[in-house]
């Protein structure tokens, strides 16, 4: 069923413009990060890697990168472990109020981050968790874990419950059944959740702003501070590198999606 030719041209034109609007700022940042001077003008007047060199040699950027990755890796491990276990438990259990429990566990996803961050700031201060690495990881885990729960629950929808019964009938105790039958069958969902958790932590800014100690700079926090302080193309080099990370996340999540889509085909 085709649209009227005129409508078609208009629709495609509008779509092209919107897509360009979506992608252009990112491309501009990438191009400007190779600028040979401090001037950020388009089209670029030459090409240089000096801002990347600056990024890699400036202590604070390196430290921020390291902090970001330490926190993101710890968050991903914690969120994936807890989120996967909880999702499997939610699928296994037969009790009332399951929907309510899912809502509760995924509440941080729809709560304004500023409220979450402020609340954590109050509460973590009471137990001395502010300004510490564990506190930061905990905060990131809270906002990252709902994505793991959702991703794993979605994959579990396509998991045949009879496989668990079969495993039990063959003598496998529940833990063995989960580790040897459930997990190998839903790993694309677990991995997709882990990618989401990692990306969420790497991006996270507001919670870090409140919970991190004076020396605990992550990449987003360092970027924010630098933009407010003095805008140099080094920030754009950092942004470009973060952007590359997000492309990796995109590729990973899409290939996992294709894989689990193929798995569910008969």
């Amino acid at each position, binding site marked *: 069923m085709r649209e009227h030719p005129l409508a078609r041209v208009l629709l495609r034109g509008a779509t092209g413009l919107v897509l360009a609007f979506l992608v252009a700022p990112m491309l501009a940042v990438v191009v400007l990060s190779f600028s040979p001077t401090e001037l950020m003008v388009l089209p670029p007047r030459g090409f240089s890697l000096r801002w990347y060199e600056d990024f890699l040699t400036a202590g604070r950027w390196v430290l921020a990168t390291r902090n970001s990755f330490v926190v993101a890796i710890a968050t991903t491990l914690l969120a994936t472990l807890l989120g996967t276990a909880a999702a499997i438990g939610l699928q296994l259990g037969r009790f009332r109020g399951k929907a309510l429990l899912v809502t509760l566990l995924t509440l941080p996803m729809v709560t304004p981050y500023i409220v979450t961050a402020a609340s954590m700031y109050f509460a973590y201060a009471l137990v001395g968790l502010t300004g510490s690495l564990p506190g930061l990881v905990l905060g990131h885990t809270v906002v990252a874990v709902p994505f793991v729960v959702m991703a794993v629950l979605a994959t579990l929808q396509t998991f045949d419950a*009879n496989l668990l*019964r*079969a*495993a*039990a*009938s063959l003598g496998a105790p*529940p833990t063995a*059944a989960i580790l040897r*039958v459930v997990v190998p*069958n839903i790993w694309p969902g677990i991995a997709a959740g882990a990618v989401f958790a990692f990306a969420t932590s790497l991006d996270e800014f507001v919670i870090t702003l409140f919970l991190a100690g004076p020396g605990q700079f992550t990449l987003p926090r360092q970027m924010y501070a630098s933009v407010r302080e003095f805008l140099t193309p080094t920030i754009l080099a950092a942004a470009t590198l973060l952007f590359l990370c997000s492309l990796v996340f995109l590729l990973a999540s899409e290939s996992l999606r294709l894989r689990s889509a193929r798995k569910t085909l008969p």
Partner: protein
Amino acid sequence: MTDALVRFRGVSKSYDGRTPVVTDLDLDVSRGEFLTLLGPSGSGKTTTLMMLAGFEDPSAGSIELDGVRIDTVPPHRRGIGVVFQNYALFPHMTVAENLAFPLSIRRLKREEIATRTRRALEMVRLPGFGDRRPQQLSGGQQQRVALARALIFAPKLVLLDEPLGALDKQLREELQAEIRRIHAQLGVTMVYVTHDQAEALTLSDRIAVFNEGRIQQLGTAEAVYERPANPFVAGFIGESNRLAARVLDATLLRLEDGSTLEAMPHAFAPGTAVLVSIRPERVLLGPGTQGLANATTARVEEVVYLGDHSRLRLAHAGRTDFVVKLPRQEAVPQPGSLVDLAIPVAAVAVFPA
């Protein structure tokens, strides 16, 4: 029966606490027998099987295995093999890994596992298929693997829940023969669920006919077919014409159209409303029937040719849906013509209305 492997005593089950799914079930499964639970969809067969396997808890009553109550034994310690309708083969494992799974759970030695896996594949006539993935097998082959997997750890009891339901007719018959052979060969006790009466009649030592969560009749294939205990069994197993009637005396009944029908002596009091059930293939047709019991003439409404026999729909006893079966060699009458028929008194089953 002293040699019962499984004993259900007063077992009831309701999922929501209100609607009964299985009601007050008493059932013994003898050692080595092939018992089939037969009944329409939703009659509680799967639920019964799942309670035995340990995947559902009974709401009331007790289940014994080998004289021991198993209510508190978790499924993985019951040692009961289960074949699921959708096979439930682990998609992330090869066929051989699927078969090895229960053995490796039981920590058998590697060589022992390899030998038993190979033998199991031979038993279900799939040697050389060990490295395939379940998805690479046909439905029938997957079913054989599922059967081998349920048997490989030598369980005393194997439960099969409509294992052939998804297969086409020919494959189904082939696998029925296979299952019978394996049952005879291993002497293992099997409880088999199906809604297909022909399958139940072919396979079973005994059949438990289920309806609405209760056993309607428990007996051999011959008993449930020839001597149904109630109208439901009569209607569910094989075909039957059901007619309403009223008792005249110890052998005579009056049908709705006013004609009389002679039956075997029964115990109903005169005047009682009863239900009469007559199997189509037991009605005698043709000129030679006049003079026999319950002889009459009826008009042919419709003739359906079915290869090995024909089905005639007759106007009889005030209705137009009286069905009889005509074996192949007989001459087929034309619709609208009149035929002679007789109903042997032994073919008239009388039930309370």
